């Protein structure tokens, strides 16, 4: 297993290198120019040219790529073109809210979706099953931002139970931290609950139809124990979909962070794209790519945990 992990980590290096060069190239050839944004309405063509020169944007592609890669190898992600702050500093400021939102969302989704999916499979074709499936179709269908606005209106404006926006660091107390996370978590988790519940139901139905389940039942094993065994054997596809869900969360948090004004990495990235703040875009995408690689690795490891037949 250790060899497998090391091999996978080594394989991540060329993946990240390709992502780095790809992102750099895309940004180089994409329309837009931070110099014109910095210059603003007042800038003359000469001033814009001077800003481009100061920022090094007038350098040829290969020179800029070499400078960027050279910085990267020393752990330097560069400096924001606009704020003049190091990208690592900006990422450090933003990583906690994103991690917190992603973690509570995925934990909440798993905690709700797996029991729902299990119940649905156990009571297949019954009213409760139909109900769960209707709810999950709704969960898929409602856009995150629409649900977010609805939750804000109900819980923040009308009932005044929860704050509308913002993020309180965990260091300032669990209560305020959770209070800021509840609404974004609810709006973001709906789609994942729907996704995971449906996959759980499908996997369990397949396992419950296996001969060994019928044999176990015939031998008088209790429902709870049968379900426990079946769930264990249905875990691999569920783990896969949870992994995909975590990866998709990276995209999902962008909208949620905007609606709830959470200062996370998603908003940092969107703001940077709109302003063409290249070093931030490159740094955050590289981080996201590394997160994808790591999540995939963890999912692969979880296969071996859930299914003893799988060995690396």
């Amino acid at each position, binding site marked *: 297993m250790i060899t497998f992990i090391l091999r996978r980590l080594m394989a991540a290096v060329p993946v990240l290198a390709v992502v780095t060069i790809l992102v750099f190239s895309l940004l180089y050839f994409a329309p837009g120019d931070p110099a014109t944004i910095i210059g603003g309405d007042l800038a003359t063509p000469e001033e*814009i040219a001077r800003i481009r020169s100061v920022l090094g944007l007038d350098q040829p592609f290969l020179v800029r790529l070499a400078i960027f890669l050279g910085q990267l190898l020393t752990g330097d992600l560069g400096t924001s073109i606009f704020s003049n702050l190091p990208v690592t500093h900006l990422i450090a400021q933003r990583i906690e809210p994103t991690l917190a939102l992603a973690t509570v969302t995925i934990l909440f989704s798993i905690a709700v979706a797996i029991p729902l999916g299990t119940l649905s499979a156990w009571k297949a074709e019954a009213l409760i099953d139909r109900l769960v499936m209707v709810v999950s179709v709704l969960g898929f269908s409602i856009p995150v931002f629409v649900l977010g606005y609805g939750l804000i209106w109900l819980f923040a404006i009308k009932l005044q*139970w*929860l704050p509308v926006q913002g993020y309180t660091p965990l260091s300032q107390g669990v209560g305020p931290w959770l209070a800021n996370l509840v609404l974004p978590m609810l709006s973001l988790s709906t789609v994942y609950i729907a996704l995971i519940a449906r996959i759980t139901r499908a996997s369990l139905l397949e396992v419950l139809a296996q001969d060994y389940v019928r044999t176990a039942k015939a031998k008088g094993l209790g429902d709870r124990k049968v379900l426990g065994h079946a769930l264990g054997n249905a875990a691999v596809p569920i783990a896969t979909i949870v992994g995909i869900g975590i990866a998709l969360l990276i995209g999902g948090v962008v909208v949620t962070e905007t609606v709830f004004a959470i200062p996370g990495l998603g908003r940092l990235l969107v703001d940077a794209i709109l302003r063409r703040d290249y070093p931030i875009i490159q740094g955050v995408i590289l981080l996201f790519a590394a997160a994808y690689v790591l999540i995939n690795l963890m999912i692969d490891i979880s296969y071996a945990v859930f299914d003893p037949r799988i060995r690396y």
Partner: protein
Amino acid sequence: MTLSRRTVLKGSAAALATGFTLNGRAPAIAQAANRTLKFIPHANLSSIDPIGTTGYVVRNHGYMVYDTLYSFDSQFKPKPQMAEGHEVSTDGKTYTIRLREGLKFHDGEPVRSRDVVASLKRWAARDGFGQTVMALTDEMPIVDDRTFQFRLKEPFPLLIEALGKPSSPVPFIMPERIAQTDPTTPIKEAIGSGPFRFLANEWVPGSRAAYARFEGYVPRNEPIDGHAGGKVVHFDRVEWVIIPDPATATAALQRGEVDWLEQPQGDLLPVLEQSKDITITSYDPIGTVVLLRFNHLHPPFDNPKVRQAVLAAASQNDYMTAMVGNPKLFRECKSFFPCGTPMSTGAGGEAMVADLDKAKAMLRDSGYKGEKVVIISPTDLAYLHTLGLVTEDLLKRLGMNVELVATDWGTVLARRASQEAPDKGGWNIFHTTAVGVEFMSPTSHLALRGHGRASWPGWPTNPTIEKLRQDWIKSGSLDEQRAIAAQMEREAFTAAPYVPIGQYQLPTALRRNLTGLVAASAPFVWNIRKA
């Protein structure tokens, strides 16, 4: 020890309750809340350099942190701010300016003449009015720590007006060591002598900026009057909460999480109007002007007759209704200077007849050959994109061949800077807005220039406008200035460097317990207080 489910639930409930009942915790917190102002600015504070970056949000940040030598009062007259006063030599060529006593920067250093001179030089490198000043300046000798001079090549009666320029970039005064930064390189420290200190360690670009009252700031004794007068601060702390989503910003104000929403979105105003806890008003007495800019370098708008046809077709009411909606918030203004300001004469405004049939006839006679008109329009700035859509419809009805290129603001700005032909990455039309104070004087009016490729995008060449501008700069009395401004307007309505498409008041929304909002072209945090 074992934890039962009930114990965990009880603990969680208690922990949550701690967070949820913060409002009722203690009088001390309520008192602190009264000394803190939470403000949602209209945009993200992505830079802290008010000279290097000209965005209004950075200018507003500048007004928090920095001070100016002079400031405009409500009658648009420059009044001393950091300056104690000035003397002018009898030949009008030497201005001796003395600083107020006791001015200090946030790092504890006194404000000295050399700081002022370095700051004005950096400002002038980025500002059109500043460049005019420097072109007429021989030298700026330092007399002593509190006194310096402008030695001019010829008399320049507008010098003090230039030093009080109220909008981007504002001639803010910063320490010499910072002001010596190249004007195109962003500064790294926000150290000023204004009423608030910037709390750099709390700045999270895209999310939050915070300011603390500067205890060393000594306001002037005069009452507040526009940008001028004593900046008396009633808050210990000001927090800028960046909320990019307009609906969320509206909800945060409704909920009382913030005190002031600088620019509520027009279609959400009815929601705020329903709340008895919220006041909707406007801080800027002049308002914002809106314009449709032609590219004069390429067909078809290199032909003045085609520009005149569009000018004759445009209905300001159509544009402003589409963009602003509420008729109480906008006005038609057939003038190249903002209506309600001294230079606005409306001379020649009768050219804007909003008559499509007449405009069609003018277009037929113009020699228009069906060239494609490329309108660049930013979809992420909905108010500007609306203008693009109105123009697209108008030009199609006029019989023109139109392509609307809808993209994001960053791309619009980059494309707008291109002087290439429209089919090679250039453009024919863009729309923008500007706070009225920037267009109220020919010296700072970017769009009313005629110096060709060196001028603001659109690049019109018009020697008459340039000569009139020079005459205006050298003129003495207000009557003389107005007479020249009328000539400029008449020429502009003939040459059509752009189409003025209206003027509107930006609404601002505050919690009702805030009083003392200053009428000025920026959202000032002095004079205002929380009940």
